[in-house]
Structure formats: C-alpha cells, structure tokens
C-alpha cells in the first residue's frame, strides 16, 4: 500500500514553513546590526549612552578653585557630602565660571529635605529637626554654616 499523507498535513506544513520563513526573514531585518557584539544587547547602545551631555563635574573639579571650602568641609559632619548634592550639577559652572552661576540653595525646606524628623531614619546617623519647633522664622544658614554645620555663626 502506498504511504498516504492527508492533504491537510501537506498544506499545514506549507503554511507553517511560510510562517517560520517569514519570521526568520523579519528577524533578519529587525535585529539591530550590532546586537550581540559584546553581550545580549545592542552594541551601539554604548555609543548612544555616551552621547548625553555631561551635567555633573565631580567634587575634585570644584576643589581646584574652592580649596578653602574643601578644608572647611573636611573638618565637619558634611565632609562626605559631595558639593553637587546641594549645589546641583556644576559642569557648566566649571567650564564658564563667570557667566554660569552655581545654585546656592537656602531656606528651611531645603535643609529639611534631609534633616526633617522622620521615624524611618536613625537619629544616630543624621541629626533631625522638628521644623515646626526649632527656631521658627529663622533660616538655617543664619546660624549654621552649611559647609561646617557645627561652627555656629554668632
């Protein structure tokens, strides 16, 4: 007896073959050229990621001009806080120090963003202030030097 293959099988095999071929052809065109160059990602994405303009200069760039602040900061509790944490991104200021002024934040709210009383923070790690009770109406920097918080101003 001749081996019988039902017509459905041959037609479905053809349909699946077309589908798989189409998938492979599409895949060929859709997979980015540099995919897999270094790992399971598009190699050229490294170049894309290197493109954005630089915003932060890093504190070593600040200390080149502001040696005095470096010395002050080193002596007190803010020594581990980098300049741009409070002053914002400073790359532009580093390049054009005359025209691009650096941010000088002030006000109780700003200092409060770290020092406001919060049950989730350990008091031994960070000093916490109840802004509703502590010297109301006064700005923090009237008494504290932000670079040297415990060197109280007169």
């Amino acid at each position: 007896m001749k081996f019988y293959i039902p017509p459905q099988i041959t037609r479905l095999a053809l349909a699946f073959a077309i589908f798989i071929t189409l998938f492979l052809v599409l895949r060929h065109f859709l997979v980015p050229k540099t995919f897999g160059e270094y790992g399971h990602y598009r190699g050229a994405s490294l170049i894309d990621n290197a493109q954005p303009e630089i915003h932060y200069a890093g504190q070593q760039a600040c200390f080149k001009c502001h040696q005095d602040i470096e010395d002050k900061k080193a002596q007190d509790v803010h020594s581990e806080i980098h300049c741009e944490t409070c002053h914002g991104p400073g790359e532009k200021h580093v390049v054009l120090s005359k025209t691009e002024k650096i941010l000088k934040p002030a006000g109780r709210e700003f200092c409060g963003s770290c020092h406001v009383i919060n049950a989730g923070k350990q008091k031994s790690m960070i000093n916490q202030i109840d802004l509703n009770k502590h010297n109301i109406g006064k700005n923090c920097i009237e008494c504290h030097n932000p670079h040297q918080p415990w060197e109280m101003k007169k």
Partner: protein
Amino acid sequence: MDPHFQHLYDILAHAQGYIFPNEIDLQWGILIVVYPFITGLVAGAFILASLERVFKVKILKPTYQIALLTALSFLLVATMPLISHLSQPQRAYEIMITPHSSSAMAIFGFVYLWYLAVVLLLEIWFDYRHSMVVWSNEKKGVMKWIYKILTLGVNDISPRTIHWDRKLGYIITIVGIPSAFILHGYVGFIFGSLKANPWWSSPLIPIIFLFSAMVSGIALVMLVYMIVSYLRKKAIDLNVLDAIGKYLFFILILDFTLESLDQIHRIYEAEESFEIIKLLVSGKLYLTLFVAQGLIGTIIPLITLVFLQFYKHKIKLQKTMYFIVSVLVLIGVYSMRWNVVIGGQLFSKSFSGFTSFKVGLIGLDGTLMAVFWLVLPIGILAFLLWLLPPWKMVKEED
C-alpha cells in the same frame, strides 16, 4: 509641581511605616491583574472543551465549539494588557526576536505562540474545515472567498480526509491539554519564581493559578453558553448546566483546598515575612481576599452548586442560580488575581511598611484600558460566532 512628583507626593502621604524609595509607586497596575485573568480564562475554557473531546463527555457537546471559540477570542487579546502596560509598546516585538533564555517573560512569548498556533488554531481548523468547505460552496461574494481562504485551499471532503480531520484534531487535543496546563502554569511560574517576594514565591503558585484558571474558564463557558442560547432564543439545556456545574464544583473544591494549603503552610512556617503578610491580608486585602475571593467567589458558589445538585424543582430558578454562580466565580477569580498582583506589591521588602495603590481611570495603565481589554474579547467572540456558527456546522455521523 511636575505631575510625576505631584503623583509621588500624593501616594507618599498614604504610605505607612518604613518603605524603600522604589516601593512608593506600584510598578504593576490593573493591567497586570487583567493579564493572568484573561490567560486563565483561555486555559480553563480549553480544558473544558478537551473534556468533551478526549473523555467523550457527550452531554457537554453543545459547549464544545463555544468553549474553543471563547478560548481563541481571549487568547488573541491575552498579551495586549502587557503590551499596553509598556512605556514603549512599539518595541514589544523585540522580546520575540532577541529573547533572552534567562527571562521568564521572553519564553512566555513562545509558550503563547505555541498554544495559539499549534494548539488552538489547529484544533478549530480541523474541527471546522469540513463546514468551511461546504459554506464556501454555498455562500456568494466576499464570504465565499473568506471561507475559501480559511480552508487554506484544502477542499477535499471525502470521508477519508474528514476521518483524518477528526483523527488529527484528536491528536491536537491530546497535545493541547498539557499545553493549556503549561500556558497557565507558566503565568503562575512568572509570579511564583520571584524569590524576592514572599507573597508570590511559592512552588504552589503555578498550580493554584492553573486550578483557578480552570474554575474561571469553566464559569465563563457556562455564562457564554447561557447568553448565546438566550440571544438565539433557544432553550438552555439544564442537563448541560448540571454537567458543567458538577465540574465547576469539583475543581472549585480543589482550587479552594490548594489555596488553603498554601495559606496554612505560610501560617505554620511563619517566616520573617509572616508578620507583614498577616497585616496585609487582615488590612489592605481584607475586602478582596476574604469577602470577594473567599465568600463571594468560593463559599457562596460552592454552597449553591451543592444545593443545585439536589434542588430539581423550578427550572427557571435553577438556571438563574447557575447564571449568578458563574458571575460570582468570575468575580472571585478576578479578585484572586488582584490579591496576588497588587497584594504582592503593597508591602515593603523591609517588612516594616506599606504603600498604597489607587487605580487611575484614564491613561494607558488605567481602568478604562483594562475594561477595554476585557470587553474586546467578547466582541471578537461575537464575530467568531457569526463567522463560524457552531449551530450551522455540517453534522457528521459518529
């Protein structure tokens, strides 16, 4: 203020205790609740259809094609909630062309494709091929060509070829049952394999997902069968409802037992995460877990189904009760998905705090979008029932 920050501050006001910064906002919203719900309906409806086919449950025959078409309608939409949840939906295809073998979600794409193309479409095709050939000869104009294309040009309706349709359809069903188990078990695995989340991480989760999927799929087919019969002005066969009701009862019992087992296991183990989970289920999940999933979705349907096995007086009342049971079960399973997906993100991984979740109405991740993805399959089902009416199929002798 920037709307994004405004949003963060609004939720932050509702956070309790200590939470990590990246836990303020839920990453997975209502659409991720809809995704396992829809996938579950597919697997459940297919398993009910397979019961008829493989185990030759004659009484379920009127629901066979309805179950298959219901499964297909929902399967076609199953990935849409995921895609519309993405920030870059136009890049969704990338998961298919460059899948990473370590990504559970990437492999789901292929599990889904297997189930759609090799199981469901083929089974429906083998089942309808004979009728489609006949319809393509009877109809005129565009419809004639649509049916011709759907037959893929296999117009042979000799007894030998038709015999092969049945034989191949049967093989596909046999392959289909484990495939349906894998499809939905896999959705459970995606959650159950997340070891960082104590509410999800459990090897029982895939099995629980599977059984709740069967529960929801069976309830949906029962509902669709009643609505379709009502719209066609045909009498609803109470024997069919009784038979489906019996399966629903047994699987609901199994589902309930497995979920209880999972909870008892957690309670007895009482790991370090237990305190926060206890607060979670007795607080934020109280309504959706104990009331919606437990009482409305499980206890009331179970009692009613037992009652319906004995109560055989007023036919109309029985039918109404089956209708209500199927709706309640669907609400219950939806709540179960909610409790898993949303519940798992409400407590902090510090185990000392909660965030809160407020569903938005509009937007790509909002309620309206979720409702749209739940309503769309009903529209597709209506279209499929019009294109491939089970009641107009060519009768074949057994």
